[in-house]
């Protein structure tokens, strides 16, 4: 039995990791600048731009208030526009990315706001330009928090990717639903659950390791 199960389990794990890795990467590319601007555009801050707060704050909140499964279905037209189809692993990357961007933006914003304001003042006193304050002070100092946050996002995305399995995306969630649930194969279901637990453990441990390495506050 294991010999027949192993290849499909392996393939499903590969699909899940692919969806999570790609959506995490794209979402970070958008979420990082968004988070930086959310953290620095308030009143009296480096890039004061209150309109930005007023537009993107609520937008981020709105995206985060929609339950993921509803978001995934609601943006099907957009998904179709971007990848040409709404079914399959690549199509699943679109809703995963859309859901992860505001999540990452808030995490980056939070981590940056944790940085002691005295450091910003010190950098300005040294003659740092606003962009330099971000690149030389805020981001390096917030790095441990950012890594923790991205790890959290990756774990959340693994969960979400199992949900998009329900709308035909492949991956471990899809395997569990089709074989484990619909074909009454508790062994497949158990294998899927155990694999998910292992994957999450590995991702979390790796993230914790990186965050610890980046954190020089307690040596």
């Amino acid at each position, binding site marked *: 039995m294991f010999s027949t199960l192993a290849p499909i389990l392996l393939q499903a794990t590969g699909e899940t990791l692919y969806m999570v890795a790609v959506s995490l990467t794209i979402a970070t590319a958008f979420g990082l600048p968004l988070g930086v601007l959310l953290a620095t555009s308030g009143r009296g801050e480096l890039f004061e731009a209150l309109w930005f707060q007023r537009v993107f704050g609520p937008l981020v909140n709105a995206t985060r208030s929609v339950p993921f499964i509803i978001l995934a279905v609601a943006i099907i037209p957009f998904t179709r526009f971007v990848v040409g189809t709404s079914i399959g692993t690549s199509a699943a990357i679109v809703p995963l990315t859309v859901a992860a961007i505001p999540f990452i933006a808030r995490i980056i914003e939070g981590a940056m706001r944790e940085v002691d304001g005295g450091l910003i003042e010190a950098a300005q006193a040294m003659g740092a330009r606003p962009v330099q304050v971000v690149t*030389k002070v805020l981001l390096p100092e917030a790095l441990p928090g950012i890594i923790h946050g991205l790890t959290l996002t990756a774990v959340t995305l693994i969960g979400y990717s199992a949900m998009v399995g329900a709308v035909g995306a492949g991956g471990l969630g899809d395997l569990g639903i089709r074989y484990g649930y619909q074909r009454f194969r508790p062994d497949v279901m158990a294998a899927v659950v155990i694999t998910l637990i292992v994957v999450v453990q590995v991702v979390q441990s790796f993230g914790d390791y990186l965050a610890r390495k980046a954190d020089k506050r307690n040596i």
Partner: protein
Amino acid sequence: MIRLSNVQKTYAARRGSDEHVALHGINLDIAAGEIVGVIGRSGAGKSTLIRCINLLETPTSGSVTVDGTDVTTLSKRDLPLFRRQLGMVFQHFNLLSSRTVFDNIALPLELAGATKAEIAKAVDPLLPLVGLEDKRDRYPAELSGGQKQRVGIARALSSNPKVLLCDEVTSALDPETTRQILTLLKDINKRLGLTMVVITHEMAVVKALCDRVAVMDAGVIVEEGAVEGIFADPKHATTQSLLADEFMDFRAGSDANSTPKTNTNTSGVAAGQEG
């Protein structure tokens, strides 16, 4: 070197707080190479005053002239360039936890776009000057409060400034470390001929370090003059009470129990852990 003329700083009324006048027509002249102390209690406006010199705070009115330029007229583009001519040292050190001692000291040069070779050339001689040769590749978390402040001083000196602004630099340190840091600053003043502005609430700091002192109360300089003169004949009530504190500290120093000094000491340890 530095001239403050009729400097006024008013914080606009916000929800929950009325308009607040932090500085009331401040006039202060600081000659090149001089160490001037600005002393006062919390809320007297001394931190605002020092921040008006490097424009971390923008004066509401009046002018601030540094080395012949009225710096209140500088554009946003020129302001960072001007600030690179001034070094600033802080009460809570404000070191980057993610950078080693060397890289912290190198930061102002990095910001100015210096090459690796230029940075090494400027930073390497500073390490022995502040007595941290053996801590070059350590992180701030591995240092004591006094060592952190030495890094802060070296960092302020790395861009070769003409002026050093010191904001309560010994207030988070114990008495022994305070003495060492004050000696170091005095030594730097002699060797490099730097102009220094020293903010403090302790008369002992003024006595150990400064040539001249301005006493502040409620946003006004109430008394100003050579340090010996002020100590010998304090005229204003604020000066007298600050001097009285010093005498109390001195007396309490002989008994090891709960003294004001011990309190400063504890807060220093807490600050050290944060950094």
